[in-house]
């Protein structure tokens, strides 16, 4: 009978959390509360839970240990068929050291099932292990161990139920959760604005560097008989046609038609259209007299829309037309 009583009471004594010893991570009260939470889970699920965190504090080794058996007691303090333990190693370096603080963590379970990936899926901020408050991340991870065990089928799931009683008068929310909209869509908003700005800058750059340039409309007059032309030296126009057009119509410079001679090639002026530089089909082959050329020059210079044809060009065209072909001269001889 006495043995039976001891067998019944001993597991309960082992499962009851003890008092917190000096802890490098948690305040004593927090360590006790965490151990009590694990003890409740152990009672309901029959799985042992615990944590073991080693800290290298600038060469001084310290540790934080606790389990459902109590703060300061490892998960191996009792005989557990199933156990899940959170382990972590934190290294703090001195201020003068160039090395950064570092931390690693893991989850071990017997039987195997719960691992580090399961813990990572909870999105706990483990960067905080090397921050000012490592107990927050460790506390959340350890508290979540029974949830992970239930998810993996190591234990039955526990279900919380809402408290329908009225809350105490001093129960007030004091945190600042921020905006759901900004948290959810802030990143997307920034991406959209960034892409639009990038597209706008790209368009501006494309327009700036690839602006289409106007090609000069140099159209060479094509004579009817190309074989009759000989390569001639370039001769610039005597006067720019624009200046000629701007002069008053009363005193246009009229040059007499060039006497018959070798054909003179001159490039057309850049301004006037090609049709005006070409000799018209009705051009008279004979040289014009001064009286005949004057009204034509007046009418040409008096037009505002089209600049006057270049005198040299006109003379060249006329002289070319008036000049008899070499074969004709040969016949005459």
């Amino acid at each position, binding site marked *: 009978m006495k043995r039976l009583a001891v067998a019944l009471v001993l597991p309960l004594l082992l499962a009851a959390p003890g008092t917190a010893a000096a802890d490098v991570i948690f305040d004593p009260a927090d360590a006790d509360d965490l151990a009590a*939470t694990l003890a409740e889970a152990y009672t309901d699920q029959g799985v042992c839970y615990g944590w073991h965190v080693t800290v290298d504090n600038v060469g001084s080794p310290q540790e934080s240990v606790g389990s459902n058996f109590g703060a300061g007691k490892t998960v191996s303090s009792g005989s557990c068929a199933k156990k899940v333990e959170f382990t972590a190693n934190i290294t703090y370096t001195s201020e003068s050291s160039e090395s950064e603080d570092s931390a690693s963590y893991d989850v071990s379970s017997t039987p195997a099932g719960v691992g580090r990936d399961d813990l990572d899926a909870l999105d706990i901020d483990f960067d905080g292990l*090397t921050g000012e*408050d490592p107990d927050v991340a460790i506390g959340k991870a350890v508290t979540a161990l029974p*949830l992970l065990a239930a998810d993996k089928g190591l234990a039955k799931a526990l279900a919380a139920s809402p408290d329908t009683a009225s809350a105490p008068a001093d129960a007030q929310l004091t945190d600042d959760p921020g905006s*759901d909209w900004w948290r*959810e869509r802030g990143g997307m908003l920034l991406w959209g604005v960034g892409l639009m700005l990038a597209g706008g800058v*790209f368009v501006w750059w494309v327009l700036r560097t690839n602006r289409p340039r106007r090609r000069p409309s140099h159209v060479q007059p094509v004579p009817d008989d190309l074989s009759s032309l000989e390569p001639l030296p370039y001769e610039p126009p005597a006067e720019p046609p624009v200046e000629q057009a701007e002069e008053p119509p009363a005193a246009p410079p009229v040059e007499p038609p060039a006497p018959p001679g070798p054909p003179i090639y001159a490039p057309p002026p850049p301004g006037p259209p090609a049709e005006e530089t070409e000799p018209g089909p009705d051009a008279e082959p004979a040289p014009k007299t001064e009286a005949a050329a004057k009204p034509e020059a007046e009418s040409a210079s008096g037009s505002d829309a089209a600049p006057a044809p270049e005198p040299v060009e006109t003379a060249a065209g006329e002289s070319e037309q008036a000049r008899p072909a070499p074969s004709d001269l040969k016949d005459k001889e």
Partner: protein
Amino acid sequence: MRFRPKLLVASAIGGVGLIVLLFAIFGGGGIRSYLDDNFHRQSASGKSVVYTASAKPKAVYEQIRSARPPADTQYDPSGYFLRYSDDIVAITANGAGSRIYVDDERRGYSHWLLFVGGVWGTGGGSGDNFRGGGPGGGK
């Protein structure tokens, strides 16, 4: 690359940005509309609504968290508690599946005071609000 292809690429980038921007402004909804769209409504009382899901609590938690990121999450061996700007969501086991509670923040804090009290506000609780401390000295 010639002028026109460059212009097309630039316009495409700007167009994608505009679509993303419009989706960010007008797309989606809050946590309540997401729960309405994705889970079976079991009961409702005012602004307190209960949904059920066939998946396990951890899978439901991951689904909700990735779709509508909460401001904070608290864990307890018996459930997940998510804090939003105006609402509090609790995910607990329900047989092989899950039960999802959503309340406005004041009522939710009262309902789940035992689990989140002292963390998101005053008024006690189970004491999982770790006070910080430890060796400190992180750099």
